[in-house]
């Protein structure tokens, strides 16, 4: 058995080990390669930047805890960007498990940083089942869908919600998601109610989103951890996505290396079998 045959039948646990090392080392020894901006990330940043100060924006936390590494840095950077412009933020989640809890934790953390007051500068609506019905319902009345906020306070008691009754009072929807709800924000809320929608999604979902982007149905896109790192760079507050970029770089390079080795083995074997014939 020559080396190529051995490599072809390699125990996949060796590959797992290599992957583990390629993620671990850059996490410990951070190099911070320069992050270049993509036009779609810039488009999202500019869309928010061009909104008038103090305008009302909806930020969704449509993700499970499993995708936190990719999506949470997007939410954090978005909150920092919006509060730097003194915007009013309404958060909600279409995910029952995780989303509302994460929204509560993240918004309160960043609010402290900017000295923002709950009920005046931001409100967490929490979760309501049936996202399609929720998205339609918010167009006529937020209060009819969410009579109370996440902690059970009636919306009538929250000053911000006296000014915001439906989509007409909002300027932008910033959707951070790890699932298909983003399709509905585009196809229902943007298409039927005309409010601009920008999104931050996981890397796996990003290629599909380009269809919406190219069609002008989506205003800007952040794809995976790289997208989050780009937004962090534009906001000027480096976070976990920027730190994670080195690990991601190494793991991508490892996969490319593995693909090359795999193909070399494939060609060697093919040459050998042709020679044998």
């Amino acid at each position: 058995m020559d080396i190529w045959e051995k490599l072809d039948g390699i125990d996949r646990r060796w590959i797992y080990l290599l992957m583990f090392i390629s993620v671990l080392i850059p996490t410990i020894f951070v190099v911070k390669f320069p992050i270049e901006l993509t036009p779609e990330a810039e488009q999202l940043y500019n869309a928010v930047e061009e909104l008038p100060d103090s305008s009302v924006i909806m930020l969704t936390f449509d993700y499970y805890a499993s995708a936190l590494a990719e999506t949470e840095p997007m939410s954090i950077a978005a909150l920092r960007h919006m509060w730097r412009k003194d915007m009013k933020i309404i958060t909600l989640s279409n995910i029952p498990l995780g989303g509302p809890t994460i929204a509560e934790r993240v918004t309160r953390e960043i609010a402290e940083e900017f000295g923002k007051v709950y009920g005046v500068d931001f409100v967490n609506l929490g979760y309501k089942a049936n996202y399609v019905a929720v998205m339609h319902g918010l167009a006529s009345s937020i209060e009819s869908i969410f009579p109370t906020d996440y902690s059970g306070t009636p919306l009538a008691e929250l000053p911000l919600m006296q000014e915001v009754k439906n989509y007409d009072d909002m300027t932008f929807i910033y959707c951070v998601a790890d699932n298909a709800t983003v399709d509905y924000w585009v196809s229902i809320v943007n298409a039927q109610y005309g409010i601009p929608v920008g999104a931050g999604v996981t890397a796996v979902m990003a290629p599909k989103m380009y269809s919406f982007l190219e069609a002008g149905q989506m205003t800007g896109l952040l794809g995976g951890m790289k997208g989050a790192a780009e937004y962090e760079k534009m906001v000027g507050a480096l976070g976990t996505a920027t730190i994670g970029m080195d690990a991601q770089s190494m793991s991508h390079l490892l996969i490319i290396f593995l693909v090359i080795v795999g193909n070399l083995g494939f060609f060697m074997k093919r040459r050998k079998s042709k020679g044998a014939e």
Partner: protein
Amino acid sequence: MGKEIDIFSIVIKLKAIRILPVILLTITMSLILNSQAFAQDFGDSVFLYSRITVIVLLLVFSGAVLLYTKWAKAGKKLFIRKIAGVDAVEDAVGRATEMGKPVLFIPGIADVEDIETIAGIAILGRVARVTAQYDTPLRVPVRYPMVLAASQEVVEGAYAEMGKADSYDKDTVRYVAGEQFAFTATVNGMMMRERPAANIYMGGFFAESLLLAETGNAAGAIQIAGTARPEQLPFFVAACDFTLMGEELYAASSYLSHEPLLLGGLKGQDFVKVLIIISILIGTLLVTFDIGDWYTNLFDVP
């Protein structure tokens, strides 16, 4: 058969069928054009005139599906290309039978309101018939209780139809977990412990697609997947032996049934696809020459 069929037969004989898409497209466009003009006059009423375009397209689509179904019923031979992945389903079950190992079938991880799940359950019915026939153990883990109820009904029905009602085990279809990765972990565990000979994934899948398919591959199973989610297709293609892409998933149950009535629906769908391709080409040309605004507005449904 009725008079209509005779007229259609004449049309086919005259080979005019080849220009039928163009004729239908012209009729559709003129209908849409008229309806759009009408829609602008009555925007805010009980009936949403602005959505008339959808009615026109719905009528054309339904008409095409029903027409081809009728032809199929009349005995006209319809050519349906071979779908390797679907053909492989029966072989995979056969392999499991020979090896005396179970077949694992996952009807996606979406809820029952998702049409992909319905397609998955329809294919499950076909697979269950074969496993019942050969007394091959079948395992169907599901993520939602509604899918559990529907799948149980289908599998039980399949066993009864094959005269094997006694061999049906109520826990063939089992609820595993509502949480995506808890479901994945359990199914992966099942794969490694029971080593099914064939893993069939048909329905809506998300981030767990590769986790399932890679584990199945490591367990040495023959794997067939089908999903309409473009973002998950690369993972299935990389780790499975056969993959049904997009509409192939919806066609699979009809294809497996070999019933002309169902195959007629597939032809109708293909016909509408030809119409859409023609519409896209016209739109691309018009927009390229900057005279396409009116055309794109036709398809702008609020």
